[in-house]
């Protein structure tokens, strides 16, 4: 937007692309099939935020309209039914709420309004909707427990959710849903599940800038660049029931979680990975043995093959990873069986590979935003060019 105002003779062109697992309609292509190369989606021309779950997607338009598509069999699309949607459809019930933040979990969804209210729908079997019961909902329901609080962000994992609240007493992270792997972070002991939000312990003094959830992992990134993780361990390390600070000399600006790995972006544009011993070798048992970690402690690893390329964005699928550079180049690696790497094959890759998005080559006027669902990938690419 800023650039638009500054330079009058340029125009912005935004494109949405998707690829990977698509048999539930999650790619938004109108087809029920996997795609091994990036597909341009003409319907989605302008998006301000996207969140991809197990097999569904939530998108926010600049006009604050909420669109959902993909698997809907648990009510996660919020359309008032239990059917899949092959194409983006508005969530009418949220029309007047000015939704500012959204998150798609395995089979549930969360929406945060400008006024700080949280709405959830989808699978509630583990209490992950935070509504005080274990029922599923096919329309977004207000989480009444936060009625007089200000929710800023929501993060939905496989069977749990995190909510970030802002208020006079500082930031607070709440969690609800399954706690079998310690992903709730509410006490030193593992809790089977809770259906009402409870405060995460050990983050009271931390200014939290973002919360992340995927699989049975939870994480919070602090404003001063520290990452805290809890829940299932990485790379064979034990489960952690309370937020645990990742020890590193770097300052972090972004973090994303898969089901067995975390990607972390440093303020110098370098990508680090936590865990991920399967990463890129899921289909190759021989390689897997080579990649096995002996150590009992997950350590941060640099991603090989990037040669000091400056990375500006990251995303994690369940078992694949995506990054984008300052020139809008998109690279993928990890598990590729469903074409989620977008490289035209189903091969796995252990190091980042450049994805071809149509005919256009990367240039300095291009930026990409990357998003991952469990087995699929979305990219929103913006090009600023001179008018003809």
């Amino acid at each position: 937007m800023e650039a638009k105002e500054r330079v009058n003779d340029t125009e912005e062109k935004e494109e949405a692309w998707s690829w990977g697992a698509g048999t539930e309609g999650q790619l938004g292509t109108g087809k029920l099939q996997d795609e091994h190369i990036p597909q341009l989606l003409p319907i989605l021309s302008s998006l301000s935020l996207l969140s991809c779950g197990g097999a569904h997607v939530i998108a926010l338009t600049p006009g604050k309209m909420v669109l959902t598509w993909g698997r809907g069999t648990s009510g996660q699309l919020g359309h008032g039914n239990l059917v899949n949607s092959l194409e983006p459809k508005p969530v009418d019930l949220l029309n007047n709420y000015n939704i500012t933040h959204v998150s798609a979990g395995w089979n549930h969804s969360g929406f945060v309004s400008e006024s700080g209210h949280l709405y959830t729908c989808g699978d509630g079997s583990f209490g992950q909707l935070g509504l005080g019961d274990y029922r599923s909902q096919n329309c977004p329901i207000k989480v009444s427990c936060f009625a007089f609080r200000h929710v800023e962000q929501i993060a939905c994992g496989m069977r749990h959710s995190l909510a970030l609240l802002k208020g006079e007493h500082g930031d607070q992270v709440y969690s609800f849903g399954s706690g079998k792997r310690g992903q709730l972070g509410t006490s030193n002991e593992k809790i089977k599940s809770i259906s009402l939000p409870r405060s995460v312990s050990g983050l009271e003094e931390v200014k939290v800038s973002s919360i992340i959830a995927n699989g049975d992992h939870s994480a919070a990134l602090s404003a001063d660049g520290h990452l805290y993780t809890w829940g299932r361990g990485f790379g064979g390390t034990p489960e952690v029931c309370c937020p645990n600070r990742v020890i590193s000399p770097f300052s972090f600006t972004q973090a994303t979680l898969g089901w067995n790995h975390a990607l972390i972006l440093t303020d110098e544009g370098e990508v680090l990975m936590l865990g991920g011993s399967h990463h890129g070798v899921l289909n190759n048992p021989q390689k897997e043995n080579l990649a096995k970690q002996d150590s009992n402690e997950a350590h941060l690893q640099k991603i090989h093959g990037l040669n000091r390329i400056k990375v500006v964005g990251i995303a994690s699928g369940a078992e694949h990873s995506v990054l984008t550079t300052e020139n809008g180049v998109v690279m993928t690696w990890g598990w590729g069986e469903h074409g989620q790497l977008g490289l035209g094959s189903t091969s796995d890759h252990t190091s980042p590979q450049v994805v071809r998005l149509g005919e256009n080559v990367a240039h300095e006027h291009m930026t990409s935003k990357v998003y991952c669902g469990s087995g699929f990938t979305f990219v929103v690419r913006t090009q600023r060019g001179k008018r003809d």
Partner: protein
Amino acid sequence: MSYDDVEIEDMEWNEELKAFTYPCPCGDLFQITKDELKIGEEIARCPSCSLYITVIYNMEDFSDQKSKTNIEPAKQQPVAVA
């Protein structure tokens, strides 16, 4: 190689599929039927991909003699219609 080891109590009974299920990273579900558990099968497969998980359970819990005292894992709750 098995993708993960999952306890039967962490799997969900899916009435439509007539199988115990667990999320697969591809977006589909690992599945194993009661009949398979009865004969000692411990591999739950995903119909959409090559991955599989190892199910941890007591075979006796699924044998015919004990069918009345089967353990009941988390059941999918009915969806409230607004």
